[in-house]
């Protein structure tokens, strides 16, 4: 049977990332995309879908089970190999670096599959970047809260204005060559250990 488009199966427990990959595939014109979050009953799904390409995140603890199934299961009618082209070391490295692996059925032409892998790699990287930035924003918010608490402690215990309290924190951080949030953390911890609760 001649196929116009490739069937792609995305196995990812992370729903947000899976949605991002799926959107990318659809934007690239792939209509036959299936996303699976849970590997329970995966053999039956594979038999139904007959995927040409399977994309799996490297964090999935079921990779060994899935690989074994691709090679042996009756559900898989055509043997499935890993990655687009074993000789394409750069692609393989980019994929593993990004945290994704791709399996393709034997005999598929490389130029048909490579764009799918490239897309998955770039979307995985974009997702990691986004997750990292989110983490940084969270950390930033957390630091702001701690600095506010430290300012409050100084204002109360030393009768300073908010601005003077902040200046003191900043000067101490500069003198000790540390981050202002580190100084604030130390101060809040010390205050918690030494005195009655400052802000409750």
């Amino acid at each position, binding site marked *: 049977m001649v196929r116009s488009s490739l069937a792609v199966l995305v196995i990812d427990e992370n729903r947000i990332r899976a949605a991002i990959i799926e959107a990318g595939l659809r934007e690239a014109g792939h209509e036959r995309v299936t996303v699976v979050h849970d590997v329970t009953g995966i053999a039956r799904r594979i038999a139904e879908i007959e995927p040409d390409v399977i994309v799996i995140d*490297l*964090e*999935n*603890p*079921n*990779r*060994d*089970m899935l*690989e*074994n*199934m691709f*090679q*042996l299961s009756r559900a898989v009618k055509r043997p499935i*190999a*890993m*990655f687009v082209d*074993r000789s394409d*070391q750069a692609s*393989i*490295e980019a994929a*593993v670096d990004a945290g994704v*692996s791709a*399996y393709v059925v034997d005999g598929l032409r490389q130029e048909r599959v490579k764009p799918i892998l490239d897309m998955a790699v770039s979307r995985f990287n974009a997702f990691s970047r986004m997750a990292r930035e989110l983490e940084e924003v969270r950390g930033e918010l957390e630091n702001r809260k701690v600095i506010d608490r430290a300012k409050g402690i100084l204002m109360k215990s030393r009768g300073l204005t908010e601005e003077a309290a902040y200046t003191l924190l900043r000067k101490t951080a500069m003198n000790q060559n540390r981050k202002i949030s580190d100084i604030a953390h130390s101060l809040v911890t010390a205050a918690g250990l030494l005195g009655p609760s400052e802000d409750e």
Partner: protein
Amino acid sequence: MSMDAEHQITAGFMPLFDSAVLVAAGELGFATREGIDLTLHRETSWANIRDRIAIGHFHLAHMLGPMPLACNLGLTPLASETIVPFSLGLGGNCVTISNAVWAGMVAHGAAPDLDPARAGTALRAFIRERAGAGHDPLRFAVVHPHSGHNYELRYWLAGCGIDPEREIEIVIVPPPFMADALAAGRIDGYCVGEPWNSASVAAGTGHIVTVKALLWRNSPEKVIGVRKAWAEQSPEALAALLRALHHSARWCQDPANHAELAGVMAQAGFLGLPPAVQMPILTGHLQLGGGAELDVDDFFLPFDKAANFPWKSHALWFYTQMVRWGHVAHTPENLAIARDCYRPDLYRSALKPLGVALPGANAKVEGALKIATAVGATGAGLVLGPDGFFDGQIFDPDEIDAYIASQKSGLIRA
């Protein structure tokens, strides 16, 4: 030790107890003392370990004993040439089955004594009874197709007259999911390392029916798989690491250190399980289920009995089982690949300066030692064995053709 270590080594491991020698080498200063800055990365699958070795993220890793063979024989989707200069221990696995299967086996004469022949005979009778009643075959799980678990489970079943290809189904389940899969009835039994057997016993959902240490006494399990290209570029770094692992393994074996070792492994970044559940593998004292308990000799050895020596006969036995179950064709080329994978020469040259006991031979006749035996070796005080198979068979690595032929023709004795 200076802050700038002489050697930077990156290693992968799976959160299993038998990564202990590698973990302790990094955490307790054995690597640092050899001038190594050892970075350990916890992984989520053996496939990840293989991939990261293949593309050079890791120099070496905790691996299943047959895994480097599978890589070199081209059986895996991605691979680089991998060698084994060090073994991480002997034994440690069990076969655990559901309460329902245990009840069926007891009806056919099984007893809570871990005797492989007796348990296998009862299991065969139960399987035949089920087949006669038209039930689906029992489903067993192992951790990976190219694992000691898969090959020892099959060896046991076949040796007891059960055809593992037709009379049962074998599936792959990650170790931490085994106990849950058994409790939920998705599988009927499994072969895995500790603590995932004791986990089912503690939950009241399974029975341990036999152990690796009785199927093949003092048999190989996990190894250090090293990217061959790196080993050739960095012989001094590798030798330093092997010495660090040697000191770590000796420390891990000493009962005086077991509490501290369990504490290290309990950390979230390593095994991440409480020290109490690590005690069965450390002591060999197993709860079997239903209140039965037993002490198993040489249940798991991280150091004693030359446990770290990468015997070529161990690799070759794995190879014969790969052939037996159709994973690879027996050809002179494949045999040569299997023969070159484990590297006792590297182990020996790295440890020579320490003046410790080293086996003089690269291979031994497996199953020949019926009792613990002091053997001729460089240095003093090397004791090997016993190393018997449960069925009394002998594996002579010089008679591989005959061994393979005998298993093809006659081992399934109905």
